[in-house]
């Protein structure tokens, strides 16, 4: 009951003066399971996301076994895979496709959308803007439990006898629409669609909450221009999500109609299994347009939060303000807008009108400009810093390097003429795994290392963090860099084996290297897992602000309770990146320190703000008298 009461009083008008009634008495169920506290929900998302990441990673190692060691006898996996192994002890070709499909689905949606955005938007938005909780704790809770339901359904689909969806994570019809085309397009596909519907509901509930919280619940003084870049990133991410996920919903709904109710949105002139289907007039390309209208913004839904997190971490650990704050916000805004008008670059050679190809080439390469600006800004932030290589910082540097390595190949793929050859080859696989997959994953891990002290009140072990970083960083490069060569040589993706082709007969060595590196990288994640679990219980106790950071979350107690701040929510006076300000005695000045207290380090225009601060404080005091 206490939790519910609290939320009724946590309206924005008088959140300042109710710091005294946070003692929360709920029982186990309301505190840890059906919790409405944003921090608990964030942890729920994080732990679910980590579980999914392990599943997704394991699936990828399974299909890498097939690609790296095509002649290996995998009979020892029989107890786990059962009928999915052929009698010769090899992975069944159709199961191979199921593995690829589920790996993509899990990683893109369940790990890097829910696990990343769900964790850090929930955890950081209220803490960094100075709010007691999300705008609607109840919707926030629903968001998690819809995600959980969706997870259960998707997880179940892995175990049914006909296998999970297997037509690629993009589920292009007619393959995904016709159960007679492959086993996975039967019940597995139905479960995929149902799970995604709940996933979309969850994502929308979350996004609406993030947006309303950022707009309405910022503490006094926290103007938009004083928000940390993390918050900007989560804000844009949520907006992109709200605008694009409903389109996936529509695409999925029409696919459900085609599959179950005999409509022909995506189907036309099909002869399969010895009979001509009655469907005529539909277009498979329509589905691709709808899918990528979500699919491309989805890339940025995954990436922007990671970029926000790394901005924060790089500034903190370089002990320098992030370079070009406004340019960083501007480029994120520009990326967010452009992300809606580049989708068809996934479709240059699908039979789409070539004129559209030219338009989308043009728009796609424009989006490279703000991305380049971001990289330059990161690098300049490092310049003349005083860099502390915490585990979080190392992962953030890793992120920037992946963003660069993978981003640059986007210039090839975005150019329709060059894309003809590279489309659907391993070059594409290398590109998006680096720029979106690994970069976002590193952002997520960096975020965990950085905010772990605030989540659990303890420190993660840094040395294990270094080992984890080096194994993963080198591992990821060893997995994905060689794929560029394999792709330039024309090797198509989603191939069970290449031995049927003379043209694709080489690279057994590189493929083996990639597989070994993949196994190593997955194994390294267990170091992280151990560190994570161990540190929750036995980690060194953290101080309230272990990284000497400026943002508001570090002004909360070691373990922030329900309502986050014990007393009043601090007022914000300055931007979030006053690191190493000339004249200041410490190398950081938190956001809640007024300029009047730091005359030694104020810049000329900031001295003028002091008067303004005084006036505002006076108003606050008067306001309290009423």
């Amino acid at each position: 009951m206490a939790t519910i009461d609290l939320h009724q009083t946590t309206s924005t008008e008088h959140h300042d003066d109710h710091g005294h009634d946070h003692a929360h008495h709920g029982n186990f169920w309301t505190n840890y399971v059906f919790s409405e506290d944003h921090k608990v929900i964030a942890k729920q998302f994080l732990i679910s996301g980590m579980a999914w990441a392990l599943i997704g990673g394991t699936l990828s190692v399974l299909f890498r076994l097939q690609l790296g060691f095509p002649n290996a006898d995998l009979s020892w996996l029989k107890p786990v895979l059962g009928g999915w192994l052929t009698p010769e002890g090899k992975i069944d070709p159709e199961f191979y496709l199921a593995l690829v499909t589920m790996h993509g689905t899990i990683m893109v949606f369940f790990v890097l959308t829910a696990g990343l955005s769900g964790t850090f938007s929930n955890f950081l938005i209220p803490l960094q803007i100075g709010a007691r909780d999300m705008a609607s704790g109840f919707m926030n809770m629903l968001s998690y439990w819809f995600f959980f339901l969706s997870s259960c359904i998707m997880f179940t689909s892995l175990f049914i006898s006909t296998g999970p969806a297997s037509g690629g994570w993009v589920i292009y019809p007619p393959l995904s629409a016709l159960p007679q085309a492959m086993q996975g397009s039967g019940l597995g596909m139905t479960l995929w669609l149902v799970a995604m519907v709940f996933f979309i509901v969850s994502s929308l509930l979350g996004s609406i909450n993030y947006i309303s919280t950022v707009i309405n619940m910022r503490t006094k003084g926290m103007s938009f221009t004083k928000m940390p870049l993390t918050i900007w990133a989560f804000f844009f991410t949520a907006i992109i999500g709200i605008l694009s996920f409903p389109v996936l919903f529509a695409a999925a709904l029409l696919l459900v109609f085609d599959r179950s109710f005999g409509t022909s949105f995506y189907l036309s002139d099909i002869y399969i299994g010895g009979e001509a289907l009655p469907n005529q007039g539909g277009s498979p390309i329509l589905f691709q347009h709808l899918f990528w209208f979500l699919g491309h913004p989805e890339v940025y839904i995954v990436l922007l939060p990671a970029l926000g997190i790394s901005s924060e971490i790089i500034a903190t650990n370089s002990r320098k303000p992030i370079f070009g704050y406004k340019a960083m916000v501007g480029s994120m805004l520009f990326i967010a807008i452009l992300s809606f008008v580049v989708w068809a670059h996934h479709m240059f050679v699908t039979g789409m009108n070539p004129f559209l190809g030219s338009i989308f080439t043009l728009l796609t390469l424009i989006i490279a400009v703000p991305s380049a600006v971001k990289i330059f800004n990161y690098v300049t932030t490092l310049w003349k810093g005083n860099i502390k290589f915490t585990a979080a910082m190392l992962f953030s540097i890793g992120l920037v390097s992946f963003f660069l390595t993978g981003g640059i190949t986007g210039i090839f793929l975005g150019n329709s003429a060059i894309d003809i050859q590279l489309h659907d080859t391993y070059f594409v696989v290398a590109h998006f795994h680096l720029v979106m997959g690994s970069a976002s994953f590193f952002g997520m891990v960096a975020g965990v290392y950085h905010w772990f002290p605030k989540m659990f009140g303890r420190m993660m072990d840094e040395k294990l963090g270094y080992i984890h970083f080096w194994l993963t960083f080198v591992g990821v490069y060893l997995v994905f860099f060689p794929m560029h060569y394999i792709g330039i040589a024309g090797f198509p993706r989603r191939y069970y084996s290449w031995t049927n082709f003379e043209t694709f007969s080489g690279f057994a060595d590189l493929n083996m290297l990639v597989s070994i590196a993949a196994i190593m990288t997955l194994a390294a994640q267990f170091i992280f897992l151990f560190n994570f679990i161990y540190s929750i219980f036995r980690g060194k106790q953290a101080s309230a602000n272990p990284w000497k950071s400026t943002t508001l979350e570090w002004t909360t107690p070691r373990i922030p309770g329900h309502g986050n701040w014990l007393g009043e929510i601090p007022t914000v006076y300055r931007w979030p990146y006053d690191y190493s300000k000339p004249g200041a005695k410490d190398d950081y000045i938190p956001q809640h320190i007024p300029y009047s207290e730091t005359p030694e380090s104020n810049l000329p225009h900031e001295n003028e703000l002091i008067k303004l601060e005084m006036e505002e404080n006076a108003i606050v005091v008067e306001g309290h008298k009423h």
Partner: protein
Amino acid sequence: MLLGILYLIFRIGNLVGLVKGKEEEEEEDSSWNTINAYLLLFFMIGGLGWFFWYSYVHFEGYTLPVASEHGEVTDYLFWLTMAVTVVAFALIFIVMFWFTFKYRYQKGRKAVFFADDHKLEIAWTVVPAIVLALLIFSGLKAWNDITGPASKDAYVIEMVGQQFLWTARYPGVKDKMLGKQNYKMIDASNEFGLDLSDKNSFDDFKSLELHLPKGTEVQLMIRAKDVLHSVFLPHFRLKMDAVPGMYTTFKFIPTKSTADMREETGNPNFNYEMACTEVCGRGHFSMRFPVFVHDTIEDYEKWMASQEAWLKQNPDYLKRVPANLREAAIIKSGIPVDSQEAIMAAPVTVTLN
């Protein structure tokens, strides 16, 4: 068990760490910081070194010889983009990891408060924009040429994808036109769904190998019978999806015959191949289709003339030809006289449409 032991070792290590003084710990932190800075530097040098070494030494291994006119253009664009981006990539990579090394933490040093610089920011917005614009426009020109309409005298070939094989249909040498097809007419023998009421279909022939002439434009008309497939001719730098319910098309000029290529690669067994690059189900990886490029147009036409019309191979379908066109069908498809009468004598039972 193993995890338990690891846990114990780790726990003991930590407790030992606690015993150490705070100062000692700080010193250790700082030495780790230096180690990480050096490692990042080594990673950069080693990584770039490996990248350039492998790219140089194994160049032959990862590049495919090109065998089409537009392929030479797109290859040029590819390597141009490669040159530009590798320079940018290497520069940023070196600078970034140099910074992480040079500006690693030192006690007592203070970072420089450097929040923005508009000139710098404008410069690195404008320069990439200009470079990208140049790359885009050269790309767009190539794209428009490649996707423009095929010339009227291009050889037209139909490629049909199905789970899990390809078939090619050629217009016969007599009319040089592909006959109409309708998916509802597909059956076990009539795999193209040939519409035999169209007289252009009489001399169409099927091939299980894609034959191409060298030096002349070829237009592929691509379709699929069941799910999406994609025609991929790696040496010709050609890729286009096969979509049920519509034709997609790609035109190109092969520049090297199979014999030329055998000579160039020094591999007497070299063969061109076609693959499927849109996931289409269980047998996706096995949709290989052999390709042969003739040395001259004459050779190619000779080969075409030597092929039997589909109708000749399936004379039973003569029954489906409307009565008034049967004679034309017999002549065009080249059905021998003795089998004609037997077929014609049979009663017409099947009428479509």
